[in-house]
Structure formats: C-alpha cells, structure tokens
C-alpha cells in the first residue's frame, strides 16, 4: 500500500522537480520569485496538446504507451514554444522593470502576468479539461504491490534523462558553466567576460523548456487544465525552498520529496489537501532551516 503511494509520489515528483529547477534557476540568475512560472507549465501543456491535435490522424501508438510519435514531437515543440513565451514575457515586462531598478515590483508583475496568462488559456482553449489521448491505460504491476501505467514509467524515465542532460549541460558546456558563474556572482561573472544578457536569455530557455515538459508530464498523467500551473506553483516553490533556493540539485531532490510527501499524505487525509501538505512542509523548512537542504545562506 505504502509502496504504491511512494510510486505515485515519484511520478508527481518528476513533474514538480523539473518545474522547480526552472523556478530556482530564474530565482538565482534573475534574482526574483517568478510567480508566472506556473503559467509556463500550463502553456507548455496546451502547446503540446495543440501539436497532438494537428496530428490527430496518426493513431498508432508506441508499444504500450497511450501516445504515438507525434507526442514526442509535441513535447519538443512545446518546449520551444514555452521558451519563446518566456523570452517574450521577459522582453515585454521583466526586462523593462529590471532596467528601471525597481526589482521588487518584478514579483508583483510576475503575479499579474501569471493571472493574465492563465486567463488567456481560458479564452483561447476554454475552461474544460483536455487529454492528450483517449486511450485508456491499465496499470500494470511492476514490483510487488506497485502498479503503474506505461505512461507513468515514461514520465519518470523522461525526467531522469532530462536531469542527467541538465547536469551534463551545467558541468560540461561553456554556456552551462557561465550560467553557474552568473548565478554565483553576477558582477564577478561579468568582469570575467561572461555575456550576462546572453546567460539571462538562456536561463529563460532552459527554465521555460523544463517547465513545458513538466506541464506535459502532468497533463499526460493527470489532465490538462487552465489552472494546473497555478495549482502546481505551491508545489514548485515548496520544492525549491526545501532543496534550498538557487540549488538546482536541491530543487530536484525537493521535487521528489514534496511529490512523495504529498502522495503519502493521502494515507491520512483527503487527497484534496495535497497542496496544503506542500505548504506546511515549506513553513516547517522555513522555520527550521530556511536555507533548505542544499542551499546557501538566505538571511
């Protein structure tokens, strides 16, 4: 019984982890809590849904999965489109506010942008839930006492691949190293010849792409809703804070812990309270160790 909830938690945690990485990246490099990050998740999920819709005629599926090759294409397209959306948002709003040195209002602006983007979804796509596929998935036993659908295994596998890819990107590539340098100390990075503007742009691309994939993964395993990103935002922030804001590996770890905790809580209280569980964990972390598990000092 517990093993099953643990498995569910890992599936939810995979989405949260990828979303939280983007959040923590923007927090560290751009220096503000981006409340619009949840909207990137929702938009990513809807972008992918659009692409799948275009390929509506393609009915064949990959092995036991509920979707076919168009869906893989849709994930890539969604990541690209969400990156563009993030860059446009930055260019239209955040860039201007950054320039005028009124950094604190960035948070308010991002909160406004999040509501705006969420309601644009309602206007464009309608308020009703959507699904990538009508195929019904049957949960198969994979371990004693644990049943998962093939889609859920795909989601966890994709998350693992992306996390490894992100790790290689940050440690092996010039751009990745530059990103870590800017996040550690922007002024120092600038005097050593790193193009900070370029790093900012790539931060949005990486964060936006991961958000889109997280949104698609959530949409695949649960459903696609205009509110999904906003509802997940609390999980993302809890994960980022638990892992230590600014720490990428912390965000991944935090995402898994929050996902598992939320799903284990179902043993004791109604599933409706999952976001509240994330919130209470966040408050506890802030009380005991505000720097999180892997983070630096926050005071």
């Amino acid at each position, binding site marked *: 019984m517990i093993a099953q909830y643990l498995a569910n938690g890992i599936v939810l945690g995979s989405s949260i982890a990828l979303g939280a990485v983007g959040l923590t990246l923007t927090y560290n490099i751009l220096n503000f809590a981006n*409340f619009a990050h949840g909207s990137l998740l929702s938009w990513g999920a809807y972008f992918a849904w659009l692409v799948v819709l275009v390929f509506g005629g393609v009915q064949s599926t990959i092995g036991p999965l509920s979707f076919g090759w168009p869906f893989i294409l849709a994930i890539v397209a969604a990541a690209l489109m969400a990156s563009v959306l993030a860059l446009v948002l930055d260019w239209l709003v955040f860039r201007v506010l950054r320039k*005028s040195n*009124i950094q604190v209002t960035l*948070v*308010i602006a991002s909160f406004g*942008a999040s509501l*705006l983007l969420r309601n644009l979804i*309602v206007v464009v796509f309608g308020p009703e839930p959507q699904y990538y596929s009508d195929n019904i998935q049957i949960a198969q036993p994979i371990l004693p006492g644990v049943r998962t659908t093939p889609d859920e295994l795909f989601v966890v596998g994709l998350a693992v691949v992306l996390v490894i890819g992100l790790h290689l990107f940050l440690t092996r590539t010039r751009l990745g190293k530059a990103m870590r340098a800017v996040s550690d100390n922007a002024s120092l990075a600038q005097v050593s010849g790193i193009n900070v503007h370029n790093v900012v742009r790539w931060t949005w691309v990486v964060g936006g792409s991961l958000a889109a994939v997280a949104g698609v993964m959530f949409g695949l395993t649960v459903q696609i809703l205009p509110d999904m990103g906003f509802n997940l935002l609390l999980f993302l922030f809890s994960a980022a804070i638990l892992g230590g804001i600014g720490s990428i590996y912390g965000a991944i770890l935090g995402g898994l812990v929050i996902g598992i905790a939320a799903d284990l809580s179902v043993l004791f209280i109604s599933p409706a*309270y999952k976001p509240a569980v994330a919130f209470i964990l*966040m408050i506890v972390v802030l009380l005991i160790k505000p720097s999180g598990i892997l983070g630096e000092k926050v005071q």
Partner: protein
Amino acid sequence: MTGIVSYLVFFSILASIYSLMSLGLNLQWGYTGLFNIGVVGFFAVGAYTFAILASPPAAGHIGGFNWPFLAALIAAMIATGIVALIVGIPTLRLREDYLAIATIGIGATIQLIANNMNWLTGGPNGIYNIPQPLSAYFSSNLGYNVFFLVMIVVILLLAYWSLERIVHSPWGRVLMAIREDETAASSVGKSGFSYRLQSFVIGSILMGLAGALYASFIKYISPTLFMPVLTFQVWAMLIVGGSGNNRGAILGSVLVWALWTMSGSVVQAILPSTLQVKGGAFQIILIGLVLMLVLLFRPRGIMGSRKAVVFAGESKTVSGE
C-alpha cells in the same frame, strides 16, 4: 431612479470593503515593503470566522453560536491576526520574496479548507443566513443598505484616521526607516523583524475586518467568492491609486472597482452567450493589463508617495547574497 440609487449604494459598499483591504495592504506594502500575495486568504478567514460565529444553527456544519455582530467582528479580526502571525513568524526574518511565497500558500490552503472541511465551513455549499446587524429595524432593502453604507463608511474613515495617525507616529517612522534602510534602523536598536511583524498583523487584521463585513453584507459565503483574483484586484487598486498613500489606496479601490464592474457589464452586453463563461477571463486580462501598464509607466500610481517602496527595493535585493 431608485434602481440607479440602489446600485450606487451597493457599489459604494463593495468599494468601501475593497478600500479596507487596500488600506491593509498599503500598510504592509506601501509603508513596510511586505509582499502579501495572499490577501484573499486573510479576507476569507475574517469572512468565515464571522459567518460561523454569528450565524444561527445550520445543518451540515458547525454553527449556531448566534454571537452579536460586534463580538463576531472582533473575533474575526483576532482570528485573522493569528493566521498572520503563523505566516509572518517563519518568513519575515528572511528575504522579502519568502513572505510572498508563503502568503500565496496560505491563500491556497484556506481555499482548500473552505472547499473541503465541510464540518467547519459547509464545504462548496458555503454558509447561509449570515445575520446583518439591526436589519430588523428596516422595512426596505434599500433603506437597510443605506444604513449599512453609512456604517461601513464610518468604519473606513476610522481605519483611515487610525492608519494616518500610526504611520505618522514614531512607530510609523521606524517602519519607513526599516523599509528604506534596515541596517541603519537596526543600528539604532529597532528590530526589523518585530516591526515588520506588527505591520503585517495589523494590515491582515484590516483584511479580516473587510471579510467579516462582506460576509455580513452579502449574507451568504462560499469558496468561489475567495479566488486568487481578489488578491490581484486589491493589488491593482493599491498600485493604481499609489502605494504609500492611504488616500491613494482608497481612490484606487473606487477606480479599479468601477473599472471591474463596468467591464463586467460590457462583457455581458457584448459577448454572445456561448462565450459568457469566458467573460471573467476577459475582465481579469483587462485589469492585468492596467496593472502592468501602471507598473511600467507610472510605478508610483496616481497619488503614490515619492518615497514609496517601489524605489526602496534596490538596496534590499542584494541582501540575499
């Protein structure tokens, strides 16, 4: 004619309720620089506390305490203050965005409790028959609403007057000193945390008071009345009116509330019935655009003080390093 009058009375009562909230937010944000993105949560705590304590017995959820109006009002304010303490104590020592994150969490959590804790809040059905003070003495609805308006305007003026007194008192000057330069303020022995916490709690109590009055005025509350968009409206009111200025907060409330209700009627008139469900979304997009444009082109709002917190951020954002 009476139609217009009764509509204006209704409009003014709600504008006053919003004004109380934006005054509370102004104390927190305008004077202290605290991000509260969970305004709706504190508003809901006030509304629900009042509704539970003041209502007659009802099937399905706790109630029947029949508390008198004033007692329930004060209890609602105390309950909101306690919730503010719970959120404020862990977060107000940290970098300012932590409070924003925690307040959005409390807003969501209270919404969850309202929706799911049926024995306490009536769940999705909400709480009915919330009493209105002295309603037995009035025969017409309009007459009563005029009385309610007078009462709420008196409360609003009282709140305005008290806030003006405290922000211009030594206490208020410490608040602004901390907002502008916390290191300097703490070097003369003023604890930033303690003052921030006081300001946060007082501001939240005003939001709770607004919630209690709202519950009493509309007589019926349910979770759908407490959506995150309300927080957004109050922020738009404060930013448009001008943060750091109490008169600006009230002016902004009236203006944005007028814009909101007008856009609502326009949407209703223009949109075909098939698109009506999306009407609310259009309204939010409109208010969002107004807020963004004000932030970008006139960050001080209509009446904002020159020293409003929007310009104080530069010195503080590095404190996270």
